[in-house]
């Protein structure tokens, strides 16, 4: 038997606009694969963020809503409350979810909205050219922290959102994985699947955090960027299950 590498039905036949070595391509595909596997294409409604994944609907072939910067979980709340029979997820970056959208993030989680939040953490603002994100590591240079993020200059520390959300009653599942090696990619796939299944069971809010490379902003080769996640980023953002009820 020949095992053919085919495109998931939930993914469109288009070429990518993402930079070489970007993690979004892998993650878009994982989301589409899980939707196909669970036969959810006719039920799923995605919410795209503002950020590099703003045009996620150009890749996914199912119903998707846009959201203003940071408001994806408010939009998802509106959708899910009106369509409880559908499966609703947001796909958001660190700036969207943890900075400008922090209030919506905290409160959607605290209400226990029965939605799935896929959190793409690349420790920077990619689309706008590499500014400091709430998840930028201490010492990591960005265009707005040219000498590296320094808490002594009032630039704060990386926010560990999944750990914060895990402390809320409304959250049933909080996990962190990466797309930096084949094992973690498969792990991420499993987390997304589990989060969708939780939603089908009506368990409430799930967050799947995924450490994802941004070689362009990090000024690393795609392989070095993957290595940096495995060797550096995981020290601040340890992988694994944070909460699973």
């Amino acid at each position, binding site marked *: 038997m020949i095992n053919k590498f085919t495109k998931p039905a939930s993914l469109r036949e288009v070429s990518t606009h993402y930079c070489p070595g970007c993690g979004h391509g892998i993650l878009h595909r994982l989301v589409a694969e899980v939707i196909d596997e669970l036969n959810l294409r006719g039920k799923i409604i995605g919410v795209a963020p503002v950020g590099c994944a703003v045009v996620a609907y150009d890749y996914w072939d199912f119903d*998707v809503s846009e959201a203003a910067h940071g*408001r994806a979980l408010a939009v998802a709340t509106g959708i899910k409350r009106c*369509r409880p029979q559908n499966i609703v997820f947001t796909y958001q970056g660190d700036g969207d979810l943890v900075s400008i959208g922090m209030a919506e993030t905290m409160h959607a989680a605290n209400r226990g909205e029965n939605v799935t939040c896929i959190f793409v953490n690349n420790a920077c603002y990619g689309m706008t050219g590499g500014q400091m994100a709430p998840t930028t590591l201490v010492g990591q240079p960005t265009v707005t922290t040219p000498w590296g993020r320094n808490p002594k200059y009032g630039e704060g520390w990386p926010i560990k959102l999944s750990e914060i959300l895990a402390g809320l009653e409304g959250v049933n599942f909080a996990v962190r994985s990466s797309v930096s090696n084949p094992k973690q990619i498969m792990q991420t796939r499993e987390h997304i699947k589990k989060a969708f299944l939780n939603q089908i069971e009506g368990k409430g809010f799930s967050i799947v955090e995924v450490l994802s490379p941004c070689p362009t902003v990090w000024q690393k080769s795609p392989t070095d960027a993957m290595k940096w996640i495995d060797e550096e980023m995981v020290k601040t953002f340890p992988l694994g299950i944070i909460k699973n009820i």
Partner: protein
Amino acid sequence: MKKIKVTKILMSGNEAMAEAAIKAGCFFYAGYPITPQNEIPSYMAKRMRELGRVFIQAESELAAINMIFGAAATGVRSLTSSSSPGVSLKQEGISYIAGAQLPAVIINVMRGGPGLGNIASSQSDYFQSTRGGGHGDYYTPVLAPSSPEEAAKLVLLGFDMADFYRTPVLILADAIVGQMMEGVEFSSKSEFKKKLPPKNWALTGASNRPANIAKSFFLKEGALEAHNERLREKWEKIKQNEQRSSTYKTEDAKYLIVAYGSEARIAQEAVDMLRAKKIKAGLFRPITLWPYPEKNLKAVSKNIKKVFVVEQSLGQMVEDVRLSIPYKEIHFLGKSGGGIPLAKEIVKFVEKVTRNK
């Protein structure tokens, strides 16, 4: 015993608008507390739950308007309400809703500004409401009630207009209309007579159909320009079809007072007081503030010698009057920050100007 048929219910404007939304089939409400519109979320909290519909007390006005975006994208009728500072916060979301062509109703029970201002009645959000309000090239229909009963009527109309044109519709009430209690008779049907189109654009899951996308983002060269041209055609259609106004004693009038909302009620009293003094005054009351009822104003003011615009603001609607009938002599009387031009003050103002002819 003789059976008495109850036709009117004593209600505040805020409650009347909430009940009208229920009657219009509003399925989703989200809002954040702010005076003087708190009766709306209180009413909705109880009634929506009773009816198996959705009420959410949102964490902020930002969240509330973006919940409305999501709810509207699924094709249900949705409502949010707030007052001036809160409506400023909603503007980004309203711009997105207009851009994505989603139907929704937004109630603004205006209070004094700028800034935190106060909680007294004011009409100082006219510019914001009638010129889009948020970023980008867009308009929203703006309906301005002058009584609780009319407020209820306009909410019904607003939901129909929103669905027909796929646009956010603003109900612009002032604190007096929101807070005053009067007998309200609910009409069972909206005065909107056009057939509402099916919502085949709604996000319901792409089951046996191509995927639907709710978006206001058009990055490809020329795509946004083409989208905005389509929006322009829609705004033009609304301008042609939806201008609404009412008049009081204008048939033989020489002097025309123009006022809307609660101020129009006061101005109506002023018209009677002026008539008692043999001064032939009449009232023109815009009901749609956008589109501005310029066609009707042109017709009504044909034989008018002088026009008096009265507002609870430093002079906002007066600009639309000047744009509609620039060839007329137009005078302005306004008070701001909770100040309300009273009937006797309007009379004095008209008398002073007409004496100086």
